[in-house]
């Protein structure tokens, strides 16, 4: 009986809770972004973006930091995509049957996706920096990031490949298409939208990561002259300025502002590019 009286209340209550949680999320977002904009935006100018840092980063610009970030990002993405694609294809069993011996390997990929980034940093330091002799360098940092992103990217691509209808593959086989043609002309175009997701994850990780990169790409603030130079990313710069350098807060905020803008910009560019590719291969 009671529930009968309460029932008309449930919907408005639910609506209220829903609205409140949406507002809470929006408020947090506005607070963070607003704070960064408020503190960072008025002081940003070309000298800051294109200048070199001085006085341990308290003064001057952040050009070397931006450059290092872009390089590390590019290496991470370029190294991740081919491996993630092949791993995803392998586990999706769309083109090649997977021998049961290999199935448990999927677990490893899942576990790897949950390993904290410090562990990857340690691994990168041991393997890329020391064992392969790359030292503290942009290359080591990018490759370490790639290792970090790889499990998740492979998982996303595996799901994307698995969701391709079997009819596309058997239709291709029935036309006598080679596996490579089926893969490159039919399967790859179908997973392009998920590649966007991977880009965005890579970018997010690469821009946000500090722990793994401290061990591998180091925190030198000079313009990188080659991929074997050490270089710090924006996040490390922010971390360093706000934690280790007294009086670095102003520049930390400005850098954070640049970081947020860069994040939005790269997301947007990735989005546009992928949409263009998709349109080219899927038709308008």
């Amino acid at each position, binding site marked *: 009986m009671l529930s009968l009286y309460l029932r008309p209340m449930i919907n408005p209550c639910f609506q209220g809770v829903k609205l409140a949680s949406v507002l809470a999320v929006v408020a947090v977002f506005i607070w963070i972004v607003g704070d960064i904009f408020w503190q960072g935006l008025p002081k940003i100018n070309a000298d800051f973006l294109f200048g070199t840092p001085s006085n341990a980063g308290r003064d001057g610009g952040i050009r070397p930091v931006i450059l290092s970030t872009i390089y590390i990002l590019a290496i991470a993405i370029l190294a991740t995509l081919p491996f993630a694609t092949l791993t995803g294809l392998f586990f999706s069993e769309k083109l090649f049957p997977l021998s049961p011996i290999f199935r448990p390997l999927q677990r490893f990929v899942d576990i790897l996706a949950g390993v904290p980034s410090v562990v990857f940093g340690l691994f990168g330091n041991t393997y890329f920096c020391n064992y392969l002799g790359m030292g503290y360098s942009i290359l080591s940092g990018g490759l370490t990031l790639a290792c970090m992103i790889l499990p998740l990217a492979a998982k996303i691509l595996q799901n994307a490949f698995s969701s391709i209808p079997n009819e*596309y593959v058997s239709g291709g*086989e*029935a*036309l006598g298409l080679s596996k490579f043609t089926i893969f490159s002309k039919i399967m790859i175009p179908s997973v392009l939208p998920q590649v966007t997701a991977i880009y965005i994850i890579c970018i997010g990780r690469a821009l946000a990561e500090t722990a793994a990169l401290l061990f591998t790409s180091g925190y030198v603030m000079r313009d990188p002259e080659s991929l074997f130079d050490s270089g710090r990313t924006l996040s490390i710069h922010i971390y360093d300025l706000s934690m280790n350098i007294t009086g670095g807060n102003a520049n930390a905020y400005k850098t954070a502002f640049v970081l947020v803008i860069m994040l939005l910009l790269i997301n947007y560019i990735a989005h546009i590019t992928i949409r263009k590719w998709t349109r080219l291969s899927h038709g308008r």
Partner: protein
Amino acid sequence: MADNLFEIQDLCLCIGNKPIFSGINLNIPKNQTTAIIGPSGCGKSSFLSCLNLLITHISKYRLVGKICWNNNKINDNNDLDMHSFRRKVGTVFQQPMPFPTTIRKNLSIPLRQHFRLKRSEENDRIESVLKEVGLWEEIRHRIDHSANDLSGGQKQRLCLARALILNPDVMLMDEPCSALDPISTQTVEALIQKLKSKLTTVIVTHNLQQAKRLADHIVVFWFDVQSGGYIIESGSSEKLFSSPEEDITRSYLRGALG
């Protein structure tokens, strides 16, 4: 026997431990239309996928017996060039599923796999095959648009076109009209009629009227629980529809014909 395209001897198929069909003996004559009819689940689709060897992609299949194509054994034959074999055996599935790309690429991807053509030749081939399936006028202005925006009937005709563009010797069609409305069905049927003169067709259908209209030969599959599917009767279309030998066939035809 040069006038049989396929000769099938004592063919049995099991998937896992389950017998799908057994004891199939059948000749499929060249340049004629053979219709396969029978109740659901008796293995008609599985039989078709033995003819184009797509069955080899299923795990745990076991195929015993002999399938000859132009007098060459094709099952368990490592010397068979699968790609050129499949070029000559066109397949149309029940669900029209063009590749998720443009209409043009649906045709040019298979074409480029098997032939080296100049751009202009390629475009001519695409145009002529689209004319053949009666799509050209409808889609010429959006040939570079997505094939997913086509209607069901148009998609099925595109699937026919992408098989036809490879100049196959035989078309295997698994209920090609079952996802289509009556008007599209008519268009596709008319197309099959037109193709009859120049290629062999094997068509699985649940529509007995359609089988009657299209086929020269009818093969009736039946099903029993122990051994799976088998052929209960086969013969020329007139004979089978007018005076079937088996009681089961008679009642099946009567029941389904109403």
